């Protein structure tokens, strides 16, 4: 490093190899530090990746890690079985609809909130709204579902009590136990939970826009809406594209706009199952609950392949269309 006491004369000594070795020795503590992380990733990230093999094999849990390599190949049998599963159509539809609805509603919400917050001139009010709006991000899905229960259930729910007291309905509405309401419930709670959080990033993007642009526009007679349309939104474009790419890439997992799995698992029940059962909850049930490891691994694999394909293609399209991209 910079602390070489004797100047090194180039061209002498053992050449490049021993030079590298010297540098490595000098950095050995650092390599030890990094090495810890590499070993960790090897165990907890890379070994499971080899486990993908079990989707193509007749794996039994008694085989342990070694069994991943030693069990018999069955080719695409489990993939075939999943595609012909009587629930396949329902699972794919529910997964896609839930993910799409979340992109449609949960992705624009923080952009709108950021734009509105940017128009607020009372700093104290702005900061207060902001602080409150990202609080739900830190609350677990379990609590969010508990809150939904307290508000929406047929017997104790505040909403039903209020609707009946005001005479809007005679019977309590079965928000939590009817297939008709599940998608609205899932998307609504995802927006509620994550809207404020993603606002942070969009507000940061807005704060990077030069104030002189707004001043110039004002002199030219642009009203507030015109300024939002021609200055604020174009100024956020790069960030919007990056967040959109991220959102689409993690669409199947629910990623940025709330975990699909946790929602479907916690808000799902035997009655709303026709709309609430998704690929992930199904994989969980047949995998860890029923012990069909290879079958569940195959279902998992299909899903992650689609996710990776989505993130690369949306990134490619974003780069082509707008010039901004994630990588």
């Amino acid at each position, binding site marked *: 490093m910079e602390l070489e006491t004797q100047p090194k004369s180039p061209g002498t000594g053992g050449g490049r190899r021993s030079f590298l070795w010297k540098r490595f020795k000098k950095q050995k503590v650092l390599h030890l*530090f990094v090495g810890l992380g590499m070993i960790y990733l090897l165990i907890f990230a890379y070994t499971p990746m080899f486990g993908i093999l079990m989707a193509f094999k007749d794996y039994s849990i008694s085989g342990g890690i070694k069994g991943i390599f030693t069990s018999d190949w069955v080719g695409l049998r489990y993939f075939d079985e999943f595609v012909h599963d009587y629930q396949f159509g329902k699972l794919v539809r529910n997964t896609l609809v839930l993910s799409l609805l979340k992109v449609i509603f949960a992705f624009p919400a923080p952009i709108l909130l950021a734009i509105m917050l940017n128009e607020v001139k009372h700093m104290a009010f702005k900061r207060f709204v902001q602080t409150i709006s990202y609080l739900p991000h830190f609350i677990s899905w379990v609590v969010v579902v508990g809150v939904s229960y307290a508000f929406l259930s047929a017997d104790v729910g505040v909403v039903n009590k209020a609707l009946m007291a005001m005479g809007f309905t005679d019977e309590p509405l079965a928000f939590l136990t009817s297939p008709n309401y599940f998608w609205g419930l899932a998307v609504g709670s995802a927006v509620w939970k994550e809207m404020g959080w993603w606002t942070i990033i969009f507000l940061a993007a807005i704060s990077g826009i030069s104030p002189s642009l707004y001043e110039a526009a004002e002199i030219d007679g642009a009203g507030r809406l015109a300024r939002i349309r021609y200055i604020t939104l174009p100024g956020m474009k790069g960030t919007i594209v990056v967040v959109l790419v991220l959102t689409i890439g993690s669409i199947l997992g629910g990623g940025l706009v709330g975990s699909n799995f946790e929602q479907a698992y916690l808000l799902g029940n035997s009655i709303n199952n026709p709309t609430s059962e998704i690929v992930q909850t199904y994989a969980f049930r047949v995998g860890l609950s029923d012990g069909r490891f290879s079958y569940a691994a195959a279902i998992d694999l299909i899903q992650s392949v689609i996710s990776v394909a989505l993130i690369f293609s949306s990134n490619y399209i974003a780069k082509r269309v707008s010039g901004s991209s994630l990588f």
Partner: protein
Amino acid sequence: MLKSQRQKDFVFDSVIYVVLFIIMLTMLYPFYYVLIASFNKGSDSLLGGVYLWPRNFTLENYRVFMDDPKWVKAFLVSVLRTVSGTLLGLLLTSIVAYGLSHRDLLFSKVYFTVIVFAMYFSGGLIPYYVVLRSLGLLNSFAVYIIPSMLSTFFLLIAISFFREIPAELKESAHIDGAGELTIFFRIILPVSTPVLATMALFMGVGQWNSWLDSAYFVQSEELRTLAFRMMEVINKSNSPMDSLAVANSASAGVTSFSLQVTSMVVSIVPIICVYPFLQKYFVHGIMLGSVKG
């Protein structure tokens, strides 16, 4: 002309303030409602109409909660995993990030490829389960801590933060004869409060809220977390089968609903307590992550 512009602005501002006020209420009221419901007599809450303050004030819900060894144990497990998981996670993440923050580190390209690849690809739940099982981590307290000690996301945030620390700080310590460990613990960590606080908040909240690992990897009743127990009681009353089941019929007026809201308050309060102190850090922290990640 000027006047109508001002009128337009007034309408525009009013709409924005009203909308923001409504958003704020919808974010705040659920928390408030859960709080008052936890102080209201359970059987009375079922009648409805409790909107603004407890109608039938009682501490019975909290008494039942604290008298139940199941809840107390779950609370303790959650506290223990949050504290130890956060500390160990911070330690490993910052050590590895410190090494990687040196731009002249040999093989750093290889190291970063390993990290970024692990960020985008994963084996999925089932192979992960098999690995944890082979390591003997299933059904132990360690399964809460060890597998979550290093996340690639935090690693990248910490690296970009460490890179902003002036190199002179390290150089002068080197000249004074300090080794990497001394530099790391005595110089780097103390000046890294913002990023450490950000990571501590995220790791801590993640640990505190986690119930999935308790559901997946643990069977022992002793090791259940608060979030898991809450999930159990919410899921049970949410299922159409027994929506009115009384949790503990021996105690006056306590229902499964009032026990739920009480456990929710117990799980939210610690987060609300640390949140204001760490808030100023994490806004900066998430920005670092979003720009470089």
